[in-house]
Every structure is written in structure tokens, then in C-alpha cells.
């Protein structure tokens, strides 16, 4: 039954997305703008940053393309769960779903499914456009990249579920989202290598899951690292997932009970 439900949530997401066609094409169009901006920045930089980019293959455009593509998962994970709670509250559909036998956690998880598929579609487009612009992915370790991707999604989703718990209880002002969104872009090595930072600032990078996610992805896709070489990134992401997933599910369950007791489930 879970599969049928997942299919219907995807279909619902697709139909709603396609009912706003202009929004869809506008997003795609500006994604292309974004890629081209960094393409020309990389062209201007040439070999100037080669010292920092050496561990990632030496090319800034390849570096930043992977960073932008996969950091999208973090953004989606952080936002999609809390946004799906809020959207369903605002649309008025949450209550109607909650009186069905489908559990609250399933409803929230399945409601975010379309966002992840859409994010994957964007990542795919990033990579395809990247190939056309000269990014070399011929040595990619696909299995390694897939393992990192799955761990990335689990890890980021856990943070997203924590964020949704805050939104459910406090409605606005989610500190997890604000803190991680800002710090990950700056310290996560998305747009530039963390080696640029002085040592004490790099410590911040090392406690952020995104650092291991984008670093592992670059090593797997651009340099074709073996699973053994990818092990440090994979194991760190796995450790984050093992801690964060049960914690987030526990916090979410407690939040649902709290708002149900307060009658605030459908308030926003």
C-alpha cells in the first residue's frame, strides 16, 4: 500500500506543479542562468585557484557545479518537510488527510516526495548541462555516488524532519532551518573549498553534513574515487544518519502529540 500511496503523492505533486507551468519553466530558465554565471566566473579565474582545487581535480566550474547541484538536496530536505506541513495547513488539506488511517509521519514524508524527485531532476539537468559545458565525468564511480546520495538524503531529511517539528509546534521561526541554511552555504564547501578557511573556521565545516556530502560527490563523480577512498565521507555521513534519523522521528512524534493535545495541528 505504501507504494500506491507514494505514487499518488508523486502524481499529486506533478499535477499541482504542472498546473503552474510558467513557474516551472521560469525555474528551469533561471537555473541555466545560474550555471552560466559560474561557468564564466570559472573562465575568468583560470588556474588562479588551482592550489585549493587540486584535491577536487583542479577545475573550478566542475567543482562549483557539483556543489550547487547536490546542495539542492540540502535545501529541499530542510524546506520540504516543514513546507509541506505548512502548505497543507494553509491549503486546508492537512485535516482531511489526518482523519484517514495513514499515519501523520507517512503523510509528511510522502508529501515531500515530489520535492525530492523535482530536486533530482534539477541535479540531472545540472549534470547534463555541465557535460555540455565541458565537465569531465567519464571516470565517475556511479555506485559510490549513489551511496553518498542515499546517505545525503537520509541525513538531510532527518534535519528537515527536525525542522518540520519546530514548524508544527511554533508555526514560524525555525532555528534549525535558519542556522543550517546559512552556515552550510558559507562553511559547507559548496561554492569554494573549505581549505580556503583558516584552520579554526574549518572546524565549523567539519561538523556540517553537507561538507562530507559535496566533498564525497566531487571525489566520486569527478575523480572516480574507489569505495575505499570514499570511505571517510561515507562513514561520516552514515554516522550523522544513524544519530539524526531516530532523533528526528522521535522529536516529530512528540511534536505531533503536543499539537494534537493543544488542538494546533491545522493552525498556521
Amino acid at each position, binding site marked *: 500500500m505504501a507504494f500506491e500511496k507514494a505514487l499518488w503523492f508523486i502524481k499529486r505533486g506533478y*499535477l*499541482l506543479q504542472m498546473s503552474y507551468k510558467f513557474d516551472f519553466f521560469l525555474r528551469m530558465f533561471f537555473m541555466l542562468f545560474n550555471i552560466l554565471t559560474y561557468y564564466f566566473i570559472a573562465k575568468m579565474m583560470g588556474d588562479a585557484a588551482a592550489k585549493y582545487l587540486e584535491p577536487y581535480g583542479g577545475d573550478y566550474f566542475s567543482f562549483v557545479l557539483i556543489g550547487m547541484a547536490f546542495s539542492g538536496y540540502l535545501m529541499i530536505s530542510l524546506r520540504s518537510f516543514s513546507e509541506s506541513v505548512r502548505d497543507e495547513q494553509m491549503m486546508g488539506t492537512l485535516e*482531511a488527510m489526518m*482523519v484517514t*488511517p*495513514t499515519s501523520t509521519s507517512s503523510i509528511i514524508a510522502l508529501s515531500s516526495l515530489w520535492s525530492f524527485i523535482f530536486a533530482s531532476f534539477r541535479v540531472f539537468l545540472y549534470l547534463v548541462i555541465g557535460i555540455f559545458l565541458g565537465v569531465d565525468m567519464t571516470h565517475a564511480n556511479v555506485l559510490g555516488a549513489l551511496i553518498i546520495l542515499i546517505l545525503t538524503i537520509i541525513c538531510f531529511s532527518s534535519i528537515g524532519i527536525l525542522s518540520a517539528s519546530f514548524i508544527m509546534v511554533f508555526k514560524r521561526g525555525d532555528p534549525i532551518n535558519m542556522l543550517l541554511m546559512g552556515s552550510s552555504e558559507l562553511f559547507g564547501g559548496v561554492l569554494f573549498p573549505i581549505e580556503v578557511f583558516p584552520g579554526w573556521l574549518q572546524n565549523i565545516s567539519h561538523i556540517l553534513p553537507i561538507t562530507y556530502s559535496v566533498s564525497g560527490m566531487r571525489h566520486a563523480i569527478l575523480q572516480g574515487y574507489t569505495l575505499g577512498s570514499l570511505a571517510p565521507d561515507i562513514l561520516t555521513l552514515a554516522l550523522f544518519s544513524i544519530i539524526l534519523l531516530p532523533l528526528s522521528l522521535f522529536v516529530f512524534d512528540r511534536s505531533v502529540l503536543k499539537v494534537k493535545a493543544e488542538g494546533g495541528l491545522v493552525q498556521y
Partner: protein
Amino acid sequence: MDRGFLDVIRNSRKRNVLTTLSGVNLKVKEGEVLGLLGPNGAGKSTLIKILCTLILPTFGEAYVNGYNVVKEGQQARSSIGFITTDERSFYWRLSGRENLQFFATLHNMPPSQVKARVEELLDVVHLKNRADEPFLNYSAGMKQRMAIARGLLNDPKVLFMDEPTRSLDPGAAKSLRDFIKDHIVTERGKTVLISTHQLDEAEQLCDTIAILDEGRIKVQGSPGELKKSLSESSTLGEVFSFYTGKSFEEENASQVPFAIPRQRKRGRGFGNMKRKGY
């Protein structure tokens, strides 16, 4: 223990911190229609939401179809249908058919059954010809019929209706009442709990009426019994005023498009009546 299809049992002197419910003891038998009447803020919607497992009670117990709404929430939800007046509770950009198919899947209905069930219900609510139009094109009456179709998707034994005719014009409201009476109550024999601000609706549909005020059931009985309890010629509006101390018309004026004309009748020996302490 002899349980009705729907039991709300008070077992504490504490008041529910959420709103006002504290003195609610109700038992509804299978196939019975219970109407909840009460002024704004009396706790009607809260009571319905507790029974639908949307709100957790801070004390007391409630059973729906034999299931404890706190401990057996999933089983309770499997056996109920909830019909809300909130037309926003549908996806406006999806068609009526798509909306029903989506909610049918959430009721754990296998795909092989979803199509047939949705077609059957679209037929029942006379929306088959418009089923592929976006929900946003529907009139208020059609939206409410869709809400009824959704409430019946899992063929529930107990149906909760929270002011089902609130946003409808008098003609559409009458048509919906007839539909509820003929198709849901008479034909399908559902147990129904309906909250309403319409006295004629309560009289037409309900076997039993419970007047709820400040979180307490003030009186409960058939419409005829309630009226007779005051005097032979009493109206339900007078019963409402007697037990709540509020004029039904004043309470209702802001709720319905057409307010009921004031027809206060005083001096009917209300003083002889004893308020029922539930």
C-alpha cells in the same frame, strides 16, 4: 461493557485545557443521527475533532465504533468519515475524480477498488458528469457533495458532519439535507453525528439532539421530547434559549445567510423546568 457506536465518557473533574469540554457524556446507537446544537464556542467542533482523533483529549475517554480514539486511533479513523464545511480541504487544481482517488488511497484502498468506489460515489452525489473538471470550478453545493463523497469513501460506520450546510444557500441546503436523510441515513443506515446551527436541519435529520454549552451537554433527547419538556407548543429555539440562556437567533445571525426571524415567546412556565445536569 455495553457501548454505543459512539461514546464520550467523562471521568475527571478537570477541564480540558484546549477549549471547554468538561461535562460531555454521550452515547449514540448504531444507525442513529445525533445533532449537536450549541452557541459559538460551545465546543461542538472540538468534540467532533476529538472523536475524529484530530485533537487529543486531556482527560476522559471516547470510543468510536468501539475503538478508543487515543489508544486505537488508526482503527477509529478506519471506521469513520469526516465531512467538513471547509471547501479548502480539497486540492483545487486537481479534478474532483483525482481528489477522490487520492483520498481513497490514503484510506488504504487497493488500486483495483479505488476506481470502482470513486465512480460509485460520484454517481451517488450526482457529479459523474463534472468529475474531470478542476475542483475550483465547482459551485459551493458541488463542493459540499464532494465532501460527502469523500466522507463515504471507506464506507464508514460512523459519519461526522461539522455544519455541513453552513455555506450553502437555502435551496442547496435543503437539497443536501434531503440527500443526507435519504441516501446516508435511510438507505445506508450510517450512524451520524452532526453539528449544526440550523434548527430546521436538526429537527429534520436528527433522532436525538444534544444541546452543548460551555463544554457541557445541557440536555439531550429527541426533538419532540425536548420541545415537550418545556410545553406542548414550545419550539426548538425556545429549548435552546432555555438551556443556554442565549437566543438562538442572535447566536445564529452571524452564521447563516438568512437569519431566522425573531419569534420570542415568553411566559411559558420555563420556571417549572429543571435543568438537566449532565
